[in-house]
């Protein structure tokens, strides 16, 4: 019950007041628009590179559904995590911990958008894509947010699967199926997620410790985290080359993927010898670039007919 009382307090905002007039901007903020951009791009990449044809308008609807579902999951996540968001400096100005929005309003917003995105995907595109979309939302909300996030330092390793769904959903939107290549794209984001998130967690370590979130740097310390980041970045290199092994991507993609993966490994090695964690934010920034460049290379492969 102690947890419940903490939640109720946090729902009233850090200043203890209830502000009932949330603005349109607050609802937009609830959708985590910055996180959405990478989700949308990877979803579009999966849709574009998949063999087959989809009507351009339905392709746009599929991407819109992926974006809305990602935002809706983010809104439900913010509703559930409003107590710890109020403690962390990075998140305390979000609409719920800042007391600019009623928690029930945020939950309703997230649930309605989730249902709507799956429904539209099913009606406009196909049932496979809609099922995968529903799985991604469910995984993010129930497996990551509710079950893993506050219980294990492996939270973002397993929970990272939720963020790996978009290219598979995009692929299914075009082909109506799940294939080995779409699983390879899933694996790429799955292996990329731990070093990406832990780079940020190293910098925001104090925030997570204060909030009681067992991120790996909080539980195992910086050095153990950096070693695991190195392991994941090394494993990421062969995973990034799987599309080539499956005959789906060209040698040009292989060259780009190898170069980017080697730089990523280089960042991990530099971070391992960096006691002040000055490299962490640079590595976090590079990790975003890494994924954008690899998916852009796959899109270019398909557009130029190289594969």
């Amino acid at each position, binding site marked *: 019950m102690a947890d419940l009382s903490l939640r109720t307090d946090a729902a009233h905002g850090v200043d203890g007041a209830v502000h009932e*007039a949330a603005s349109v901007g607050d609802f937009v903020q609830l959708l985590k628009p910055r996180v959405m951009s990478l989700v949308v791009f990877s979803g579009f990449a999966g849709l574009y590179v998949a063999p087959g044809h989809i009507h351009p308008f339905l392709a746009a609807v599929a991407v819109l559904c992926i974006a809305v579902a990602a935002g809706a999951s983010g809104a439900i996540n913010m509703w559930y995590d409003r107590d710890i968001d109020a403690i962390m400096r990075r998140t305390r100005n979000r609409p719920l911990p800042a007391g600019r929005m009623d928690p029930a309003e945020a939950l309703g917003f997230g649930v309605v958008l989730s249902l709507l995105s799956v429904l539209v995907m099913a009606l406009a595109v196909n049932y496979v894509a809609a099922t995968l979309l529903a799985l991604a939302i469910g995984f993010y909300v129930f497996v990551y947010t509710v079950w893993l996030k506050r219980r294990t330092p492996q939270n973002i390793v397993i929970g990272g699967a939720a963020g790996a769904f978009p290219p598979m959903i995009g692929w299914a939107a075009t082909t109506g199926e799940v294939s080995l290549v779409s699983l390879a794209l899933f694996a790429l984001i799955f292996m990329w997620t731990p070093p990406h998130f832990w780079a940020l967690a190293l910098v925001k370590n104090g925030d997570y410790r204060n909030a009681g979130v067992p991120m790996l740097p909080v539980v195992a310390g910086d050095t153990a985290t950096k070693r695991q980041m190195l392991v994941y970045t090394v494993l990421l290199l062969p995973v990034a080359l799987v599309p080539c092994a499956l005959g789906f991507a060209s040698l040009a993609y292989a060259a780009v993927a190898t170069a980017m993966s080697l730089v990523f490994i280089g960042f991990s090695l530099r971070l391992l010898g960096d006691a002040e964690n000055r490299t962490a934010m640079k590595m976090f920034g590079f990790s975003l670039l890494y994924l954008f460049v690899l998916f852009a290379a796959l899109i270019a492969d398909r557009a130029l007919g190289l594969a």
Partner: protein
Amino acid sequence: MDMKQPAGGDAPRPTARTTTNGVATPHVVTAEARRRQRRKNWALLIVLVGLSVLFYLITIVRMGNHG
């Protein structure tokens, strides 16, 4: 305290709010809150119209695909 709302203007409007123990307390709706509510209403209208257009276009495109 007069609980009636004024007919118009930007002056704060006192309204009644019932607390959990059933006691009605005065609650002032400020001009800023009303502006925000108006913006939300417009946003909701745009979303609903957009959704209607979206469903219409989806129907047209899907019927075209199977026609």
